[in-house]
């Protein structure tokens, strides 16, 4: 018989009665090493100090506290527990909102209160057995080696083919991490043909979407939603598809559906806020952003963008006579939090001030002016690039606040950084008619395209020359700078100092100011680690 008696346990529950009751059950079962925690925060601290073999985590730890799912997310993302450890979510009932919010990081088991000693013993015994069976796979996961995960799965299935269904998800995740897209697609197809598993549908949809097969992805989600109309993750995927197709109204509807099913999801609420803003549905936007802010307070997905979004939605909802006191108070609270919690981020400091100034424009012009001045001072000399959405909103607000000149310079820098993206240029055109801004990127963008063509023919010298010319026109343009850097790295030995390496490092340093939310950020990081040998 396998034994969990020698293992270490952590019980996390806000009720001391429950903690002591489970502790005594474990004692009676012969377990000696038992610790307890009454909040998620404390549990995380304890897990950072000691690696527990079993964690019995209560889901609901009180309002305004981290819930069990958030604790699990934090533990996984910060690698505070091994994959070999057993995480059991203890629940008062199998509440839907909770179970459904957990497609990404699932606990090893759910245990519903009340349970007795034999029930607990049985679960622990079985979970220990399962972990032992899967040990080679779990150890490979801890090492972060997908190839080894795959090999361990193959070995286990060879040893006992009956357990192959248990390996499916590990295999799929490993193939995904290895970017083995064809093999992954075949695996998903075969799983779905046999048994419709919700995560397989979600994975296949995501894969197709990533590869740009948007309409195929849509087909998968449509089929999946017929079988699993209660799975929010599938609605999320469908919303991505609709956004890509330009149907933001449809995407909003789909996300609202997902939120009805599972309201506890910070990122989903934030995305709904963004879509509703794009659709000018300010009522829905403010509601969704408010949820994202409130739920995010205890979550690792806390994001100042939601606070700014909430303020923006509330301002947009306001009437021509200005905002009522309650709304102003809410805006003030949510923006103060941004300024207070991000003291070293100049972009957020500027945006929070301008947002607040905009909200006060009608009711308190004097304070609005003071805030605008503060923002302008910080804006001057800011090196960091804002995302195009943020930069354009800043430009618009500067215009509204009577700072036309600062607004124009914001638009100019936005056109320089993002000018090769036609959708950004379209949005810039909504804020200005100035032909010098609107046509400023044409020449550089043409040269950039030409450079890419030449690069593909393999003529490195000429490609670099063309990119160099383009970059001279727009030194901060992210696409051009990355292309320049890549063409310089191509065929260059990064271990030997050279003019090419110097030049490459310089242009990467400049665009290193890009926001990490940019789609090109991973590419930048790859180039950077090559150029700087990190």
């Amino acid at each position, binding site marked *: 018989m396998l034994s969990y008696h020698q293992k270490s346990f952590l019980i996390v529950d806000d009720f001391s*009665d*429950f903690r*002591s*009751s489970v502790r*005594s059950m474990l004692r009676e079962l012969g377990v000696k090493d038992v610790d307890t925690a009454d909040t998620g925060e404390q549990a995380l601290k304890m897990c950072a100090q000691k690696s527990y073999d079993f964690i019995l985590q209560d889901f609901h730890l009180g309002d305004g506290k981290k819930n069990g799912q958030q604790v699990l997310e934090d533990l996984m993302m910060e690698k505070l527990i091994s994959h070999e450890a057993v995480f059991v979510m203890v629940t*008062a*009932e*199998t509440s*839907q909102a909770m*179970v*459904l919010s957990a497609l990404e990081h699932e606990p090893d088991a*759910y245990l519903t*209160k*009340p*349970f*007795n000693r*034999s*029930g607990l*013993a*049985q*679960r622990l015994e*079985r979970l220990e057995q*399962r972990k032992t069976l899967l040990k080679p796979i779990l150890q490979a996961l801890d090492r972060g080696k997908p190839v080894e995960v795959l090999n361990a799965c193959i070995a286990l299935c060879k040893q006992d083919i*009956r*357990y192959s*269904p*248990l390996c499916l998800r590990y295999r799929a995740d490993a193939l995904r991490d290895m970017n083995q897209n064809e093999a992954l697609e075949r695996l998903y197809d075969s799983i779905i043909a046999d*048994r*419709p*598993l*919700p995560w397989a549908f979600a994975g296949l949809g995501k894969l197709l979407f990533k590869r740009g097969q948007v309409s195929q992805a849509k087909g998968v989600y449509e089929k999946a939603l017929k079988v*699993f109309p*209660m*799975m929010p993750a599938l609605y999320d995927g469908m919303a991505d598809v609709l956004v890509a197709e330009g149907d933001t109204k449809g995407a909003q509807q789909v996300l609202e559906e997902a939120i009805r*099913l599972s309201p506890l999801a910070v990122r989903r609420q934030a995305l709904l806020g963004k879509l509703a803003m794009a659709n000018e549905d300010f009522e829905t936007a403010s509601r969704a952003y408010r949820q994202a802010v409130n739920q995010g307070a205890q979550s690792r997905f806390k994001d100042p963008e939601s606070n700014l979004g909430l303020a923006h939605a509330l301002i947009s909802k306001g009437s021509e006579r200005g905002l009522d006191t309650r709304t102003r108070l809410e805006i003030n609270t949510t923006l103060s939090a941004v300024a207070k919690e991000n003291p070293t981020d100049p972009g957020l400091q500027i945006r929070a001030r301008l947002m607040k100034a905009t909200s006060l424009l009608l009711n308190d012009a004097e304070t609005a002016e003071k805030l605008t001045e503060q923002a302008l001072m910080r804006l001057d000399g800011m090196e960091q690039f804002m995302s195009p959405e943020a930069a354009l909103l800043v430009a618009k607000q500067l215009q509204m606040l009577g700072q036309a000149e600062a607004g124009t310079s914001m638009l100019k820098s936005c056109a320089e950084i993002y000018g090769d993206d036609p959708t950004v240029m379209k949005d810039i055109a909504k804020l200005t008619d100035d032909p010098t801004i609107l046509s400023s990127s044409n020449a550089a963008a043409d040269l950039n395209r030409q450079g890419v063509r030449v690069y593909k023919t393999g003529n490195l010298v000429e490609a670099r020359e063309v990119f160099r010319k383009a970059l001279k026109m727009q030194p901060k343009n992210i696409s051009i700078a990355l292309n320049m850097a890549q063409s310089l790295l191509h065929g260059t030995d990064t271990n030997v100092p050279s003019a090419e390496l110097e030049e490459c490092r310089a242009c990467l340093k400049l665009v290193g100011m890009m926001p990490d939310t940019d789609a090109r950020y991973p590419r930048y990081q790859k180039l950077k680690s090559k150029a700087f040998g990190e």
Partner: protein
Amino acid sequence: MNQDEQALDFSTVIASTVHDMKNSLAMLMQAHSQWLARLPEAQRQGPEQGVIDFEFAHLNGMLVQLLGLYKLGVNQMPLQPAYHELDDFIEAQLAAHQEVFASRGIIATYEVDPLSPLGFFDRELIASVLGNCINNAIRYARESLLITVSDEAGQLVLSINDDGDGYPAEMLERQSDYVQGINHSSGSTGLGLYFAGRIAALHQRNGVGGRTEIRNGGPLGGGVFSIYLP
């Protein structure tokens, strides 16, 4: 339309009340077991203890079932199928009733076909069906209860056997009425069959839905409840 809304409102009221009752019951059971643990060994056992354990489990099972029926009614019953190890699953259901078995002197066993150790179903939903059936079987069983798991033409069959008197003939004849919810007159067993039938039907594969069946006989000669999952 108006009438429907009123009906739904009332069922929502009932559902939230049941929800509260279930939480209350959980606290009660927990407090009771802690209190029990402090008593001297000799006072822990006794016929009253058996009654308390059984009725606790019975109440809990009925409340879970009521909530389940409510969710079915408003179409909120989510199916979360996955592969589960069957011996683990059955053991867990039996372990939850351990005290009742002990106090009633019932020996509960299970048999899982070693060739199909995994089943594909929604763990919580099937567990609630099984919980109700075990509870029901405890009431009628004399001294033994057997859960068997087998494979019939690709379908997973879970059967709960007891050695009691079996189901009344009238119930066997009209079981499809119960499953369809036509016969409302018969109290908790009828509702249980309805609930089990609906949950079985939610499990589908290639257009084939799951189903339930009751009969008499089986290896223990009493009532047999079977749930078929494709």
